């Protein structure tokens, strides 16, 4: 019991701590691919430290929601992070929650982010919030169904159990259902975390923003919290993609050797996924906004096909 709690705690802290590094790594890879030198991997930490120290300027029209939102976002994201199987597949995840709780927590974060964007009553904030909700309405079901596909074959919605079952019986991983669900999950990941081709995270043109527009009014520690939560969300989703669909390397016991090996494995997997993400961002242009629902409908259909094939061919 104590050991399980310790493992869960370590996993959560790990995710939270390395999140900005992941974001920095992706930026570095992107820069290198574009022929620039790029900032160091630890640059986001420096930015966060700087932003934490700055003073806040808050609009007069902001209400208590504006103040509450960053904390809810961080809380929801950290809670979601505690559910993810990062190193160990042998956790008693039923204690805390399963796939549906995870999806709900992510949605809670998105919801409050959108509220925070709407609250000050600025035009850009409202625009960003409405766009974000459109995207979220299509990505949340996709993520849920994609992971549900895996849950159907394993017979349990507990994330650790899912990862563990695919480890035990690799035959599940070959076959259209698994591949389709993975593809759908990746597309939904790109949309959820606001990366190209759905949303450009480094844009300064307000009319093209989705995620950035919502946090235009935030400054100082609030902004730092929200940025950190966004980094944690990216790392969390990448970890899920890596460990649910390709769980090899995860520890199935609590032996220290296994845990260290699992740590290395997850770092390697995150590095590969991050590189792929950077490659994709360098290659594609941002989609026009009315094309985004088409992409998301495609990913939803793929997830639906994956679930159908898993459900009917057992």
């Amino acid at each position, binding site marked *: 019991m104590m050991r399980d709690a310790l493992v869960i705690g370590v996993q959560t802290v790990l995710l939270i701590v390395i999140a900005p590094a992941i974001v920095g790594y992706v930026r570095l890879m992107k820069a290198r691919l574009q022929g620039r030198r790029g900032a160091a991997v630890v640059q986001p930490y420096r930015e966060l430290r700087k932003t934490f120290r700055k003073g806040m300027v808050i609009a007069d029209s902001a209400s208590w929601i504006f103040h509450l939102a960053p904390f809810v976002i961080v809380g929801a994201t950290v809670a979601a992070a505690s559910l993810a199987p990062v190193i160990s597949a042998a956790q008693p995840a039923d204690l805390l929650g399963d796939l549906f709780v995870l999806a709900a927590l992510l949605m809670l974060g998105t919801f409050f982010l959108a509220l925070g964007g709407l609250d000050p009553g600025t035009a850009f904030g409202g625009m960003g919030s409405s766009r974000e909700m459109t995207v979220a309405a299509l990505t949340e079901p996709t993520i849920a169904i994609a992971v549900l596909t895996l849950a159907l074959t394993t017979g349990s919605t507990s994330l650790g159990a899912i990862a563990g079952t695919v480890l035990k019986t690799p035959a599940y991983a*070959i076959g259209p259902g698994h591949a389709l669900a993975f593809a759908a999950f990746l597309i939904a990941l790109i949309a959820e975390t606001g990366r190209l081709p759905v949303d450009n995270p480094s844009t300064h043109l307000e009319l093209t923003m989705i995620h950035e527009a919502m946090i235009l009014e935030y400054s100082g520690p609030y902004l730092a919290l929200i940025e950190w939560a966004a980094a944690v969300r990216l790392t969390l989703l990448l970890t899920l993609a890596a460990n649910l669909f390709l769980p090899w390397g995860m520890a199935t016991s609590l032996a220290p050797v296994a845990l260290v090996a699992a740590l290395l494995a997850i770092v390697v997997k995150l590095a590969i996924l991050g590189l792929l993400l950077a490659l994709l961002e360098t290659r594609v242009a941002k989609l026009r906004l009315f094309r985004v629902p088409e992409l998301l409908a495609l990913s939803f259909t793929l997830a*639906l*096909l994956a679930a159908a094939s898993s*459900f009917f061919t057992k």
Partner: protein
Amino acid sequence: MEAAFSRITMTAASAMLLLSLVVLWRRHAGAYITAFRTQSITLAVTGAIVAFYGTAPELFFVSFMILVVKGWIVPSVLSAMDAKRRSGRELHPLLNTETSLLVCGALAVAAYEISRPLAEVMNLATRGGLPIALALVFVSLFIVVSRRDVIAQIVGFLMLENGIALLALLGAYGVPLIVELGVFLDVLLGVLVMQAVVYQIHDTSAD
């Protein structure tokens, strides 16, 4: 061995289904023709795999015919038709992309349900891919019904034929050779006649 055979055919069938989704997703006629060509090549490869594992040597000939007729001749005819048209404009279907894709998801689920009695009576190793073949048939039907552009309609019809060929391949390792030859002839003649009629459409509506 049999499990691998089953899985490979299922994956190939899924690839064919995904290629048909391309027609709903892209808006350019060249993309449709490429999707059809790739789908036909995948079908030919599937045929060869079934011929090998299922010990049905005449299927090698059938796969070769599929490659030649549907993988080469028909796409060339379609490309010629497309080149003759004046456009490069985007093609607007009757139903928008998001709804079309969602309808296809629903059709795939329906296909799984409908083909359940069929999959139950079959005792061949390829029965897992049967619902996917039926889903391809339904999705192709939907493409024909919901597209306004002529090339998209023809590609939808040809994908329907591919789906039925896949159904026959996975369901009974192909139909008798004489019927297979008749089908090829019909498809080829059908496409040529379609080409002739489409050219006449252009001639009479050229103003």
